[in-house]
């Protein structure tokens, strides 16, 4: 049976096949998503070898947990990216988040206003962009740095030159505002 399977919407059925132990389906998921997901891991780890290890770890988790993917809870891309991010974050935590925060490549793109335009490719993305834009700038920057680059509270505090306690409270308040705005 031949049919086009290039659309992102086909990831759901592929994951259902992965849940049945279909390794060809896992490979199809990999081929469609590897470049995007490797980028996600590398933005956090900023080390290609470590990002490859994290992506491998993530695909083993995907093989194991594909049956848990529930389309009612969101798109398959989001589910896959979350697994990759957590695999990368686990690696970062295991080495004590020693990645220097003064890396000039870090966060320069995300903090630019026009970078947020890239987020707005979908309706959900536009809503998120608008809600992030409504936050105070340091608040928004903290959330974006934490999500995209895996910075801890302490690293966000160092980068924004703010006390740790302030950053924790700001991020928590920002998350509450985001939830209200996106509701």
């Amino acid at each position, binding site marked *: 049976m031949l049919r086009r399977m290039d659309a992102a919407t086909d990831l759901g059925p592929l994951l259902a096949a992965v849940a049945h132990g279909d390794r060809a389906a896992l490979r199809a998921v990999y*081929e469609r998503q590897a470049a995007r997901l490797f980028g996600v891991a590398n933005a956090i780890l900023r080390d*290609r070898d470590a990002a490859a290890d994290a992506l491998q770890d993530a695909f083993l988790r995907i093989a194991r947990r594909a049956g848990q993917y529930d389309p009612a809870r*969101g798109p398959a891309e989001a589910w896959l990216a979350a697994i990759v991010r957590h695999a990368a974050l686990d690696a970062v935590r295991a080495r004590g988040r020693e990645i220097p925060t003064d890396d000039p490549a870090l966060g320069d793109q995300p903090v630019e206003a026009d970078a947020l335009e890239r987020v707005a490719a979908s309706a959900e993305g536009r809503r998120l962009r608008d809600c992030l834009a409504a936050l105070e700038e340091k608040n928004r920057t903290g959330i974006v740095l934490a999500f995209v680059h895996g910075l801890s509270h302490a690293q966000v505090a160092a980068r924004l030159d703010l006390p740790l306690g302030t950053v924790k409270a700001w991020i928590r308040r920002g998350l509450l505002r985001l939830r209200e705005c*996106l509701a």
Partner: protein
Amino acid sequence: MIPADPEARDALAAEYALGTLEAREAAEVARAVERDPDLAATVARWEARFAPLTALATPEAPPPDLWSRIEGALDPAPRVVARRWLDGWKLGAFGATAVAAGLAAFLLLRPAPQPQFMTVLLTDREQPAWLVQAEGGDIRLSSLNTRPAPPDRALQLWALPQGAAAPTSLGLIPHDGRLTVRPTTIRPSPGMLIEITLEPPGGSPTGRPTGPVQFIGRLAPAIRS
């Protein structure tokens, strides 16, 4: 400690999804998500809210040998539950031994007519969750210490004969976890895939599984003593 207060749980789920929790807290949430469907749903909502931000990471081709590394890591101990049951009872994987021992104890306690085919459906942590037995044209499901479905969802049982394109619904699983059906369009046979999915109340609206597969196994000939 995972808090009970909904606001505190939501805040914890948000920070977990954002990635700012310390290693110990993050590991605790990751474990809790496995057994707490409400927390899992809260985390999933936050992951979906943040998901568009992943567009800020620049896509980049991974090393060319990465897929073969992944495939190699999958090979020695396939962790996908379905694969374990593809090969029936003969394989010697570590989990199967424990399951077979549990099953033997279960059968000793119940000297019922021996079924022709059976399988044990495992949880994602490889704990036995359901016993499926087929005798004549009947398929009988019994719960082995299964946690109930979330309040707003139903568990639906499906059978997929080998070579069939789509699974056949065997019905919704009652709260007591016991169900015996005699499907009219299919007959139990070795290799038949049995699965349980999470569906909206009243069952799948489409006649095909729409929710995630919760448990899965393949019918194999029962061991006759």
